[in-house]
């Protein structure tokens, strides 16, 4: 590929991929030291959208922190709700109603598909293709309407509660979900023909942005970034939480370690999520959508707990330290893109500018989740 030899005269210049730049999908600044068009050194600068959720966690009760989780990663907000709710349920030992577990899995996987679709559109937009973004948004709109009819909001959900969900799902939602899955299944070949098999796309992605498995381990990268480098690590299979152990689905793993591998992992995950949803809709039990008599005052016993769930971008972990009162003592939020982005500095050394941006696009960044 492009062998890069630092030019002797060493007149590098610093280019600011500024806080607002079309390729950074949010307020992230990358200080690039460039030599001509080659990136010599890339250093992401964070903190432009830092809101200190962890301090908010310390002066709100356990139930009042719920809306904050949806604001961290607004593309897959339900997974963050799920992560926080299962963390508190694990700490306080709250039972979750059987039907609620299935509702959570269905809505969570729908949200994962909508997050992957948005990433697909934005990624192809980064590489210059415009129309796939709008086709992906067309499909994503169907999911948002479905979830809006049940949860009431479109992006920052606050739908899960300790012990269950806010309100029940109706048959209209189930019919809509099955219709949507059939529709997306017909459209997936179109996406592959239009983008994946396109010679320009292949030239742009194959062999670009190599991230070795060892680099993933050293930086703690998880999610599609790690699965693109041959690491089979998906918390839904690895630490089965909720009722994920009851569905059979594969975890797509590619070993080429390049941007095309990460791209294919996410495209296959859309297919797997659809399989999960179908099985969950088929096995949806009746019964209450919320365990009765779960009081809003939750007092987990003293001590610290760790709980991790699989979001569209990797493993979202929460470390709770509770001192037995109704407000958390310490709430650490481990966001997956924080570690995924930390390997960008080393991975993008010596690459061309457009390839470095293709690599950044393939890391699927959501900046508010990094800055918290």
């Amino acid at each position, binding site marked *: 590929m492009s062998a890069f030899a630092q030019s002797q005269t060493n007149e590098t210049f610093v280019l600011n991929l500024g806080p607002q730049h079309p390729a950074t999908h949010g307020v992230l600044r990358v200080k690039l030291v460039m030599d001509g068009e080659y990136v010599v050194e890339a250093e992401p600068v964070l903190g432009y959208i830092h809101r200190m959720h962890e301090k908010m966690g310390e002066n709100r009760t356990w139930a009042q922190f719920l809306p904050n989780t949806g604001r961290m990663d607004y593309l897959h907000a339900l997974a963050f709700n799920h992560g926080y709710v299962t963390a508190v349920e694990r700490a306080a030992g709250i039972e979750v109603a059987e039907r609620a577990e299935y509702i959570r899995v269905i809505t969570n996987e729908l949200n994962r598909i909508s997050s992957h679709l948005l990433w697909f559109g934005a990624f192809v937009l980064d590489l210059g293709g415009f129309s796939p973004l709008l086709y992906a948004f067309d499909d994503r709109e169907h999911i948002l309407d479905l979830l809006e009819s049940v*949860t009431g*909001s479109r992006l920052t959900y*606050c739908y899960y*509660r300790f012990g269950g969900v806010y309100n029940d799902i109706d048959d209209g939602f189930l019919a809509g979900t099955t219709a949507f899955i059939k529709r997306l299944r017909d459209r997936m070949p179109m996406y592959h023909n*239009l983008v994946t098999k396109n010679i320009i796309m292949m030239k742009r992605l194959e062999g670009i942005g190599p991230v070795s498995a060892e680099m993933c381990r050293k930086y703690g990268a998880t999610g599609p970034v790690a699965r693109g480098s041959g690491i089979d690590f998906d918390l839904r299979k690895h630490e089965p939480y909720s009722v994920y152990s009851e569905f059979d689905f594969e975890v797509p793993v590619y070993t080429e370690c390049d941007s095309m591998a990460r791209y294919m992992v996410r495209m296959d995950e859309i297919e797997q999520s659809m399989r999960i949803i179908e099985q969950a809709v088929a096995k949806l039990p009746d019964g209450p959508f919320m365990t009765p008599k779960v009081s*809003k005052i939750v007092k987990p016993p003293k001590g610290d707990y760790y709980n991790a769930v699989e979001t569209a971008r990797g493993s979202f972990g929460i470390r709770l330290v509770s001192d037995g009162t109704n407000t958390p003592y310490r709430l650490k939020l481990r966001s997956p893109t924080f570690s995924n982005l930390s390997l960008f500095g080393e991975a993008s050394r010596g690459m061309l500018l457009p390839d470095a941006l293709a690599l950044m696009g393939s890391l699927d960044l959501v900046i508010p989740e990094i800055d918290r």
Partner: protein
Amino acid sequence: MIDYFKEIISGTWSLFVGMAITIRYFFQPVVTVQYPHETLPMPPRFRGHIDLVKDEESGQSKCIVCGMCQKACPSGCITLAGEKPEGGKGKVLTKYILDFTKCSLCGLCVESCKPEAIAFSRDYNLAGLNRNDYVFDLIKRMEERN
């Protein structure tokens, strides 16, 4: 040498396949809604800002001024006040202010309200020139509504 030509041919073939897809969409009907002229109906569970529910017979709100919603709200948007009528038992609502600029629509207030006196409204296109256009006096809104 062979794969040099094979790559060219398969490459150009993939380009033509891509163009065939987009031209097919060119002739298909449009999916977008022309917003100012046509609007989408909001689903029943849409979460707009909260509104007081009018009790049919008495025409007053069902609120018993217990203050549970005020305590449940994470960002402290609700301020309410009520006073005891001379003879009657319960409290009557006199002031119910919702500061919608801080509300994150989490639904903890609606959930914590036993008599179901507050519910999500369904209006979404709120426009205002300054922040206190969004500080709603829900009692006034309830009277205006009918």
